């Protein structure tokens, strides 16, 4: 009979073996679960009962030792290699002889690119059906933002490229940078938090979400449902500048605009300083000429009116040889208006004279 524990006064002291057995019994009550990770340190030998490997979290590198009976492992015919992403179905177990925790695998499924793509496609369909990517949700970007928010990784390259592109195009641009994780499982929630911070900052009229190129898996946080929703509901117009031309993370679809390169992003969010100045100079020139033009036009109109006035004047008619006869200031149009012997005034093109009516007809 094994000794489980001994009493030393009021202290109960267990043997290592008893302790391990106790923990193992507790662990055995935990349910079977699926765990996703990368296979590393895969060890399989003919003379071993089990195949051993370590499951690694690609996000932060956390590790879980795992094992599977060799016969079962071989029957799966997975031909697993280190670095492959898998789903493992199993339960935790304590290797009592060494007090080591281990995940006892009951089944292993490879989680390949196809699975990622399928999951992504399902999410895309779902969010698309909700209208998150609808063209009528896209807002116009401001032409002259007071401040530009830049949400980027602490990896220097993407940040530097976008900042350089913005300040080259518009040297007086004011940019507020929010840095956070852009890779791994912590990236999506961290990006959402940083985006909310940026939206709360003052005077930010447009936001650029920037990340350099990377593998399909590197860019997965930019297709994370939480981040995609945050981009779609962002109160400030937002540009997604993630990865390269061939990549289409879902943030590209949810944003108001997408940029395939840092310089495209810069063109979208700030105006070209030289063009702005040139346009302003041109407008000023027109403004300064405008009153003069206006005066000239008014003058021309006046001249035109005067010309027509003169053409209509009776003086022009008199010049042609006609005369006006007035009887006491009243123009005489008919012979009956005057009587013989009456004095009338005659006006000619040049000068005039008085006359006496000799006879009317």
């Amino acid at each position, binding site marked *: 009979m094994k000794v489980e524990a001994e009493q030393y006064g009021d202290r109960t002291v267990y043997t290592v073996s008893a302790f391990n057995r106790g923990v193992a019994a507790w662990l055995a009550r935990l349910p079977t679960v699926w765990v996703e990770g990368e296979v590393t340190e895969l060890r399989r030998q003919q003379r071993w009962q089990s195949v051993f490997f370590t499951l690694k979290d690609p996000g932060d590198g956390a590790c879980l030792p795992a094992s599977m009976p060799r016969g079962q492992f071989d029957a799966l015919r997975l031909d697993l290699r280190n670095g492959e992403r898998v789903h493992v179905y199993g339960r935790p177990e304590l290797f009592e002889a060494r007090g080591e925790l281990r995940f006892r695998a009951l089944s292993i499924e490879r989680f390949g690119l196809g699975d990622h793509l399928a999951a992504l496609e399902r999410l895309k369909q779902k969010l698309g059906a909700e209208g998150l990517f609808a063209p009528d949700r896209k807002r116009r970007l401001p032409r002259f933002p007071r401040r530009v928010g830049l949400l980027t990784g602490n990896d220097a390259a993407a940040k530097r490229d976008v900042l350089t592109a913005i300040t080259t195009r518009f040297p007086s*641009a004011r940019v*507020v*940078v*929010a840095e*956070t994780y852009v890779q791994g499982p912590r990236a999506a*929630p961290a990006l959402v938090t940083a985006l909310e*911070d940026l939206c709360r*900052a003052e005077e930010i009229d447009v936001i650029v979400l920037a990340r350099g190129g990377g593998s399909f898996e590197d860019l997965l946080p930019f297709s994370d449902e939480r981040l995609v929703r945050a981009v779609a509901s962002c109160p400030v117009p937002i540009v997604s500048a993630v990865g390269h031309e061939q990549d289409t993370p879902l943030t590209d679809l949810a944003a108001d605009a997408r940029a395939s390169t840092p310089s495209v992003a810069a063109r979208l969010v700030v105006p070209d300083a030289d063009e702005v100045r040139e346009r302003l100079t041109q407008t000023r020139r027109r*403004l300064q000429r405008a009153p003069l033009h206006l005066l000239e036009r008014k003058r021309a109109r006046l001249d035109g009116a005067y010309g027509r006035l003169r053409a209509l004047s009776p003086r022009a008619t008199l010049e042609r040889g006609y005369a006006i006869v007035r009887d006491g200031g009243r123009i005489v149009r008919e012979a009956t208006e005057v009587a013989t012997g009456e004095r009338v005034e005659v006006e000619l093109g040049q000068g005039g004279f008085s006359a006496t009516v000799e006879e009317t007809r």
Partner: protein
Amino acid sequence: MTFEEAQKELEQIVQQLESGQANLDDAIKLWERGEELHRLCLEQLDSAQGKIEVLKPTEPA
């Protein structure tokens, strides 16, 4: 007033003046307003010192 608003109003004023429909009194007022808007735009272009700030992040919970 933002640069964009000032620039837009300035360009509308120029168009209005160039159309020749304003009377002389109005034209002078428009021209003065235009000059003021132009000065506003220039000031904003020149005074907006390029600046890059780093936002202090909220620690994720």
